[in-house]
């Protein structure tokens, strides 16, 4: 039985707390990982640092060339500051396909919230809104008396505008005001390596040296034994097998012992393996391969067993 929650997403892919699904124009649901607020703040700080660096460099350049263009120094300074403030973010975000230099360094990306193409206007809008998120509050705090109100009203004003600055803390998707207005989402650009298939022929070298594959494996399982666990347990086992740190041998012994007790292996019809010759890693790998084959076959018939409590 497929639960409603499962049909809500695609093919029973369960979403983590920080994951969202977008549907690409091709109609395939992609799982994206929300950027956490800390790295977004850090990316912004980096960008601010870059802006300051550009300003300092520009200032030095202006000072050096002031003899040549002395009439224009002030104009360039005034315009340059404004253009940097307003256009640094949208121009770099356009150029680097949805990431300012700061975001690039931290591996963040801006995408369209509904999964469509990220339009240039969305990039412009989300960055113009920085005005009320950053620049107006900064001015109010940094320049006393700029609003012309007395201190109490000033305090209320800061509190009120602070809501907009702190907006990412108040919603689950970490949207800032600019993201809301532009319909965008900031995510971490994922980069997962393709690891060898544990159930395939490409065994990890460690296993091949330990046990030549020519002899028939002593670890065989009956369908009844494979019917005990579900997908969740299988994938947990996969994570265990992929973990290669030293000291995992004892852990594997323990896991193998528990699995054997749970599924009743070996049953009377199966050849006994002497305790001394028992190899936990080989056992777990064989069990993983058999279990996966079993579950995947059932999946082809539309029966996806979520975990060991699933009565499918």
């Amino acid at each position: 039985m497929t639960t409603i929650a499962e049909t809500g997403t695609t093919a029973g892919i369960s979403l983590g707390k920080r994951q969202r699904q977008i549907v690409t124009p091709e109609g395939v649901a992609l799982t994206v990982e929300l950027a956490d607020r800390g790295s977004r703040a850090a990316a912004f700080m980096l960008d601010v640092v870059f802006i300051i660096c550009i300003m300092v460099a520009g200032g030095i350049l202006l000072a050096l060339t002031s003899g040549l263009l002395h009439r224009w120094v002030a104009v360039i300074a005034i315009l340059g500051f404004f253009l940097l403030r307003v256009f640094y973010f949208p121009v770099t975000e356009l150029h680097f396909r949805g990431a300012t230099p700061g975001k690039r360094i931290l591996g963040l990306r801006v995408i369209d919230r509904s999964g469509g193409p990220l339009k240039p206007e969305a990039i412009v809008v989300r960055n113009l809104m920085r005005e009320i998120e950053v620049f107006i509050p900064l001015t109010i705090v940094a320049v006393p008396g700029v609003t012309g109100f007395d201190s109490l009203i000033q305090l209320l004003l800061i509190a009120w505008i602070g809501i907009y600055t702190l907006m990412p803390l108040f919603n689950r998707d970490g949207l800032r005001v600019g993201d809301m207005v532009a319909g965008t989402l900031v995510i971490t650009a994922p980069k997962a390596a393709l690891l060898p298939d544990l159930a395939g022929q490409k065994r990890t070298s460690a296993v091949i040296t330990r046990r030549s594959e020519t002899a028939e494996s002593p670890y065989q399982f009956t369908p009844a034994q494979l019917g005990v666990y579900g997908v969740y347990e299988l994938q947990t086992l996969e994570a265990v097998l992929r973990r290669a740190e030293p000291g995992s041998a004892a852990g594997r012994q323990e896991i193998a012992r528990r699995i054997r007790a749970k599924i009743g292996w070996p049953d009377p019809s199966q050849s006994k393996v002497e305790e001394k010759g028992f190899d936990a890693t080989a056992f777990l790998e064989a069990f993983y391969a058999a279990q996966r084959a079993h579950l995947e076959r059932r999946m082809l018939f539309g029966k996806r067993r979520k975990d060991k409590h699933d009565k499918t």
Partner: protein
Amino acid sequence: MEVRPREAATLKSTQFRREREPSWRELEDLLEKLRKSSPRALTPQELTRLPTLYRGALSSLSVARSISLDQSLLAYLESLANRAYFQIYGPRAGFGRVALNFLRRGFPQAVRRQGGAMLLGILLTAVAALAGYYLCIGNAEWYYTLMPDAMADGRLPTSSAEELRKFLYETDVPGGDVLSIFASFLFVHNAGIGIACFALGFAFGLPTALLLIQNGLMLGAFVALYVGHGLGLEIGGWLIIHGSTELLAVALCGGAGLALAKAMLFPGDQARLAALAEAGRNAGQVALGCVLMFVVAGCLEGYARQLVVTLWARYTIGGLMLLFWTLYLLQPLPPAAEDEAR
């Protein structure tokens, strides 16, 4: 019946992976190249392969979800499809193309899509200006209330007509460099106010409306001051030469902010966030266009107003600018560029 390892070795998912893996690797290499440099680094053949490989990766992902339980494979495909998706559906056109397209049709179209809000912005300014004018004409004391001291800059109801006139015609025109500084300062100042007007629309439009009304009231009070001293025609020329551009831009920015507020307060059939995003993208284009208008206004105010002192010339320039903006914003739009249809 026993499940033998030989069967396990030829799982459908393993076989599937063996067949598709080369194309994933190829896509991965292309993506890495793209990330490191620009699309120009790819050969034409590679560029044409990219969408095919992307769709292949997406289909692999769909298949893998339904036949494979190998978590690392799923994670890999998910990330591969993700990264390819960014490249395919990231902003594609370069900045120059975007800018040109924006000037040709984006800006006028954006203004017209939210025409109601724009009219409301203009209306708010106009009504406030009229109110300010009649208040001050009736009772000069109002001027002190409506006009902040810094803005008044010594121009008070108690000033003589001669003093007031001096403000309208700079007798000693400073050198060109001072004018450029003045013009760029005015641009930065006004553009900042314009962007704030737009962005504050997110606060349900109240601050935006207040800014527009305050702007209008000051305008009205200022005009009333000069009319009271018999300088009505002169103040008109002084204002219209840059005001036809600047005030219009402020009103449009305000309109953009009000459009945001409308989407938040009355989202209609859509979800509030979706309505906001739709209105926001459009309104943002208006605000961006207004920044360009402020560039023009800054030049008019910084240079033209200081250099052109003949009354009729001032009226002509100001009037022509107004005509230009009206025609530009209401022109029949050129057909959409082909990448809009993508």
